[in-house]
């Protein structure tokens, strides 16, 4: 769907210095959006449409409110595109392509572990809400730079979900010190054998991972060892965002072990962790 998103809220998330923003858009896309999907948006007000920057930007849908026809996007000001986006004001309209992509799959039953690195937390909130509504057991592993980052990036909101959380920070200012992969490894180690090899209670634990590539690779490899199904959300530069340009491909192994390409925009952004070929740049 191609439509206009009216900006109804646009504000800092937490500390200004963290450069995190919350953007709430009203439009028809909200009615059909699903947790884990993304939109591809123009960063400039449609009324002052410029050809620079030329490309749309993919941003995950962090929250969906169907009654109010609103979606929430959370983003970090990183390069030129998000810097310009950050100037958009309430009342302006952005061109929105989407919702796009597949999103994480929700297991029918059992436990869902969310593993997030940094702003990889953003697409997981809508998923968490849905999983809770469905009665799944939820657990969050979230690692970030430091306390200020985690608090700015939505920790309070997560705390309100009242789920089990393992936080970690690089400087130890909140939770355990180090990478998020450590608490995940420990938790996996503590699983009963039945969960580990997937024989006794098939797929009791499912893992959804979003974060920097290296972190997703580590978690995916851990999960492979423990025979736990993991889904990872890949990022790649996008041109069309609809599968037409082959700009955003990722490398996977198909069932016969052959290297194939899939499109992050159309076939993803979420893929089974064990199929991703991490060391190929493509």
């Amino acid at each position, binding site marked *: 769907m191609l439509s206009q998103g009216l900006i109804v809220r646009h504000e800092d998330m937490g500390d200004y210095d963290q450069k995190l923003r919350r953007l709430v858009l009203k439009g028809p896309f909200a009615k059909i959006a699903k947790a884990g999907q993304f939109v591809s948006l123009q960063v400039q007000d449609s009324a002052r449409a410029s050809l620079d920057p030329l*490309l749309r930007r993919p941003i995950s849908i962090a929250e969906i409110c169907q009654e109010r026809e609103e979606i929430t996007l959370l983003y970090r000001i990183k390069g030129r*595109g998000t810097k310009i986006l950050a100037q958009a004001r309430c009342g302006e309209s952005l061109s929105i392509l989407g919702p796009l992509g597949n999103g994480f799959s929700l297991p029918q039953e059992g436990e869902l572990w969310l593993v997030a690195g940094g702003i990889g937390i953003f697409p997981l909130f809508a998923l968490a809400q849905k999983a809770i509504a469905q009665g799944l057991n939820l657990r969050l592993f979230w690692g970030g730079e430091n306390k200020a980052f985690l608090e700015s990036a939505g920790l309070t909101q997560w705390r309100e979900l009242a789920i089990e959380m393992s936080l970690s920070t690089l400087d130890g200012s909140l939770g355990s010190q180090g990478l998020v992969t450590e608490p995940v490894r420990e938790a996996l180690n503590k699983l009963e054998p039945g969960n580990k090899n997937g024989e006794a209670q098939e797929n009791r634990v499912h893992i959804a991972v979003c974060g920097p590539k290296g972190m997703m690779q580590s978690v995916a490899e851990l999960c492979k060892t423990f025979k736990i199904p993991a889904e990872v959300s890949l990022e790649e530069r996008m041109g069309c965002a609809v599968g037409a340009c082959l700009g955003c491909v990722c490398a996977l192994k198909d069932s016969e072990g052959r290297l194939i390409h899939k499109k992050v925009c159309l076939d993803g952004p979420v893929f089974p962790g064990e199929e991703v070929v991490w060391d190929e740049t493509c």
Partner: protein
Amino acid sequence: MKPVDMTTRLGEITLRNPIITASGTYGFGEEYLAYCPLEALGGITLKGITPLPRLGNPVPRLAETPAGLLNAVGLENPGLEEFLKSYLPKLGQAPTAIIANISGFSLEDYASMARALQQDSGITALEVNISCPNVKHGGMHFGTDPQSAQEVMAAVKAETNLPVIAKLSPNVTDIVGMARAVQRGGADALSLINTLLGMSIDIDAQRPVLANTFGGLSGPAIRPVAVRMVWQVAEAVDLPIIGMGGITSWEDAVEFLLAGATAVSIGTGNFYNPQAPLEILEGIRTYCEQRGYSKVKELVGLAHRG
């Protein structure tokens, strides 16, 4: 008021309207269906195919530049056989021209694909992309050497009964010379222009953004170069021209028609606005209405007067 006649001709082919989508930006025709129905378009050009499947280049394959896009997809495609078996049939019957785009690294590559693509195969025309390196000639591009370009065209023409469109590279000193060469080779029409060779550097990582170092520059940034080449070729060579390079609005499309293009292709513009082809079509129609043209063909080359 009589409706404006939007049809246009590319040699033997009649298009319902002058709007085509450009190769490599419109997949195999399915991806944009939700945004733009096939039958609204004059034609679509499919992703470039090669005799054998190709995985293409590593990522990153894209880099944004001011009003432009660099791409180095590297001709990822399923190969001729899979294309005929799994992709082409899905397009079904539409009143829209289906243009296959073929690429190769040798004359044999081109000839073999031309042989397999004939009038009964569901394709309306062949577009020959000659901007790949000619492996036999030390990597020199077919598209930058008039003699090689002529040979490729002749090889393709000898093997197929489909109309053949030569897609020219802008990375040459003399675009008119290239156009004349492919005309000698038998081209029925020309597509102008392919991408300009460019690159960009990531100043944090201190290395090229694209895994392939170089990429093709497309989008609005290159429009002035594309319009100039269409203009020059229209003055010198008597072949229909599909004009492209940076079209995002109907005004841009009219610019190409006035410069001498008989049809226009929209590439990177689809990424900016997936409904660009529809909006451009309507914009051209209104322009004709308001100025009293009964046929869109009347616009072709108008700016060359006086």
